[in-house]
């Protein structure tokens, strides 16, 4: 069971790694275009995706390195806890930045999983406080993320309803999937479900994949307009 949990969390770390890379790519392009356009909303987009990407990469790389070194991913580890805290902080901050930026632009695990995670807990009783503290921090971070993302998605719907632009639809789909992922992750915390956590990561990765498609398509659309 512990082995299965380790594999799920390892796959989760790999998805976070890929998502972080996409977030940093979007941040780079927003930064690059901001040098040309000098737009305050673009600065928020760049800064937000940079924080989100950095957080995802710090958390994913730390988890992969610690797993490879310690051969267990379920055991509480101060380094992992620190990386998770940094990630959660950056994640909430980045969603806040997106929400702020959009506001600125608009107005100026299954039961089996629970069992193996709980088995891990009973094995490491003396370090239970890590989990309890982590539980509270995760819960608050997810709730805040959901509130900020709900606002971002709402603004995204307004933007798409006005523009009917395919590229804004891709951004909307991306943020909606990330929003849905955080709802699933909140459920995973409440149900102590590793599988739900993994499902949340897959949905979030799908959101970032939509953002990647947006990035590629925007480059092509730009090139096509230039040619015509």
């Amino acid at each position, binding site marked *: 069971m512990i082995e299965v949990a380790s594999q799920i969390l390892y796959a989760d770390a790999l998805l976070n790694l890929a998502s972080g890379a996409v977030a940093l790519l979007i941040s780079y*392009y927003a930064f690059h*275009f901001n040098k*040309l356009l000098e*737009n305050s909303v673009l600065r928020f987009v760049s800064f937000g995706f940079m924080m989100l990407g950095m957080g995802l990469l710090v958390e994913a790389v730390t988890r992969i390195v610690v797993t490879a070194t310690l051969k267990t991913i379920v055991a509480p580890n101060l380094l992992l806890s620190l990386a998770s805290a940094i990630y959660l902080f950056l994640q909430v901050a980045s969603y806040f930045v997106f929400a702020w930026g959009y506001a600125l632009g608009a107005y100026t695990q299954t039961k089996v999983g629970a069992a193996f995670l709980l088995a891990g807990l009973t094995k490491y009783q003396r370090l239970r406080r890590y989990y309890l503290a982590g539980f509270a921090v995760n819960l608050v971070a997810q709730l805040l993320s959901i509130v900020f993302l709900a606002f971002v998605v709402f603004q*995204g719907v*307004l933007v798409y309803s006005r523009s009917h*632009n395919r590229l804004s639809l*891709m951004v909307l789909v991306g943020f909606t999937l990330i929003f849905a992922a955080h709802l699933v992750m909140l459920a995973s915390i409440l149900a102590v479900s590793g599988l739900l956590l993994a499902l949340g990561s897959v949905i979030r990765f799908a959101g970032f994949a939509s953002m990647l498609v947006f990035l590629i398509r925007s*480059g092509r*659309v730009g090139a096509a307009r230039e040619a015509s």
Partner: protein
Amino acid sequence: MVELVQPEKPRSRLKIYLDVLSAIQAEGEAKPTHILYKANLSYDRLAKYLEELAAKGLITEKTEEENRYFVLTPQGREFIKEVRKAEAFIGGFGLTI
């Protein structure tokens, strides 16, 4: 009475640059009268923008048989390409140039 139609926002400087450069690109070698017609600018404003674009090295002026023409420089072509990509990117976030 509620205003149902919002007045159109004035074009940004960058948008005007793009319109002027696109007009020149479409013609290859463009006369000022053709540019002002395509970019929808008065002659005074066009003269000001052509001067700015030439100073930035995005266009050059040619004179043939007493006729003035403007042509894009390689930097001008690259600038259009970048602005078009930026326009498509920011469109995803509901922004326009």
